[in-house]
């Protein structure tokens, strides 16, 4: 089955150009398939998932996802199937491994640095304020403003 569909993907026959027919009868399986569609990139398009692309390749890829799910493969196995054949380009969510860890942890790391920097800055600013309190003049003005 897999080989037949793979062959069809190469030739993109019009038999498959029926979008509503792609849908699986089982709603739970179809929901999984649609989630997977969002994770796989249409490698022949420019930065589009197979869920949103109208290209023939994307259509065939959607059918492939569904046929793999019917065979009982897990979500990871389906993603692995595409990654093996087309490289990591096919995965919209970069793997959390190797150099990519830097990408995944860039946010938290930068936040940490930013928070530290801000903390020290604010602390320095606030130490300057410590001895200073409102002068009597300021107190008076404040009071008049509040009463206003």
């Amino acid at each position, binding site marked *: 089955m897999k080989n037949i569909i793979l062959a069809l993907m190469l030739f993109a026959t019009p038999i498959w*150009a*029926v*979008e*509503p*027919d792609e*849908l699986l009868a089982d709603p739970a399986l179809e929901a999984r398939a649609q989630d997977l569609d*969002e*994770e796989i*990139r249409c490698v022949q398009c*420019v*930065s*589009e*998932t197979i869920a*949103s692309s*109208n290209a023939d390749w994307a259509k065939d890829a959607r059918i492939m996802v569904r046929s793999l799910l019917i065979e009982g493969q897990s979500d990871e196995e389906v993603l692995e199937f595409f990654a093996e054949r087309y*490289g*990591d*380009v*096919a*995965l*919209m*969510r*970069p793997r959390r491994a*190797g*150099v*990519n860890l830097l*990408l*995944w942890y*860039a*946010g938290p790391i*930068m*936040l940490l640095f*930013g*928070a530290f*920097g*801000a903390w020290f*800055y*604010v*602390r320095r*600013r*606030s130490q*300057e*304020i410590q001895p*200073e309190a409102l002068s009597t003049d300021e107190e008076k*003005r404040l009071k008049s*403003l509040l009463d206003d």
Partner: protein
Amino acid sequence: MFTELGHFALILAFTVSIVQAIIPLIGAHKGWHGWMAVAEPAATAQFMLLFYSFIALTYAFVTSDFSLQLVVANSHTDKPLLYKFAGVWGNHEGSMLLWVLILALFGACAAWFGGNLPDRLRARVLAVQSSISVAFLAFILFTSNPFLRIEQPPFNGQDLNPLLQDVGLAFHPPLLYLGYVGLSMSFSFAVAALLEGRVDAAWARWVRPWTLAAWVFLTAGIALGSWWAYYELGWGGFWFWDPVENASFMPWLFAAALLHSAVVVEKRESLKSWTILLAILAFGFSLIGTFLVRSGVITSVHAFANDPERGVFILIILGVFMGGALTLFAARSHVMQAKGAFAMVSRESALVLNNVLLAVSSLVVFVGTIWPLVSELATGRTLSVGPPFFNVAFTPFMVLLGAVLPIGAMLPWKRAKLGRVARGLIPYFVVSVALAGLVWSLQTGRSLLGPIGLFLGSWLVFGAFADLWLRSGRYGIADRLKRMTRLPRSDWGKALAHGGLGITIFGVAGLTAWEHEDIRIAAIGETFTVGQYEITLDQVSEEPGPNYRSLIAQMTVMRGSRVESVLYPEKRIYPVQAMPTTEAAIDNGFLRDVYVVIGDVQENGGYAVRVYIKPLANWIWAGSIIMAIGGGISLTDRRYRVAAGARKPVTNATAAE
């Protein structure tokens, strides 16, 4: 002839910009008033020349002058008039011309309305602004000249990309460029301040409105683009984390950070060097955006057809301006003495937190956008960074920002008591949590996204209201309402912008969490149910358009026995470019959109039909527009109308709060 004059004006503008970039700068350094005075007439002349050049190109498009290469490649005699106008910037060369025209417009505005700026500062600002013009005019003339001719003009052109033939094209790019390029003003002021070695409240009072204006345009431009994608692409996506969208989003986040830190400089004379750095970075990210769109290093649906030579040119511009400005910053920023001290808990600290969150979230988007490039250079393997990454990596920052915003926005300057502000907000917090809880119990077994979005949305909206309400005294509702209307416009602008953000967040979360879709083959006359709606495919007909053929369906949307609407989705074929587009039909509603798309005819005679129920879709754009309006109202605040540039003691400024 007219076209040739346009070309000539462009070259002349280039020479004027060189003069304007050099003479006033020397004048300001040496204190020669005559040399400094060159800046204003030069800025005006530069703008006029570019305006003429732009008109000439527009004229060529409108009259279908096929002796111009650009017109041949992007126009057609059958193209509707609106797109002949808008088509001027629907391509790389023309859009670059619009880019520099807007750049010159901002420069000219600083010359026209900058009368009360100190002479030296104004001369430097205009010179720096013009040096950006020099770089980009050189880029246009040497790599992307829109006025190139063809020896043997063809009888007709190749038409504009059909996806671009939409009203959106008329407004989206100009608004976006007004925003992008508007940030050049903040950049010029920042560099000029570094040259001056001084930043004070008057400087901030000048920079802030420019940044605010740029941010307002950018907000409107991004919202419009997102709305355009929503109805044009045929499946109702509104944000794709595409590199070019990110390219407009990063400057937007930085501009938002800059707006807030400039307030601190203006009112408290603190955060000076950080504000300068932000102004440099905000424009830097605009330039990075320009690079991403036009270099071709990163694939994107938006990218113009491009060649590496252009990419290298823009990279050099980026390197020179960012490298130069940041070096200057490193050398001079220590001169900026911060004056105002503030306590750990204060409005200043809250704004520092705002800046950290906005800047880091923008950098996360940046890292994700360029990661494919980094990975390819480092490991030689290509990979994709798509929406699943950005949704996970970016969203937490916005949740955090939304959660602390209402409290931070109400903290007093200098020294605050957290407890006092929090006490005032407790009822609003409780209501927001209760609303979220209610929705959480109503929806069955779905994600937390909807309830969290509702909590943040209502917390921000109520918080914005509280910000105004709690300052209206305590003498009965009528009196409080009257006092509220008398609050400064900048306070209203702030409340609206914050509330708008809440509405957008709720819209995004609601649409993502509760969307419902139905894809099927329907025969003519068939009725089917989607959610609470019954939809009938009444008929399908073929009709000719001005430069396309169209397949139009009529579909009736019923709810119970009531007709909600009759919709006419289309599928168009543009023969010149042999490209199909889908024109979705949308029944816009307050709480939901019904979004229908007609597909191809099937072998058995039915049609492929998609129906989406999109809850809260319009809230996304309504919120963005409210944000932009808030910014606009803040721009009309008294202190900009009356006191722009005037040197008032800081104490007065704080008292006005």
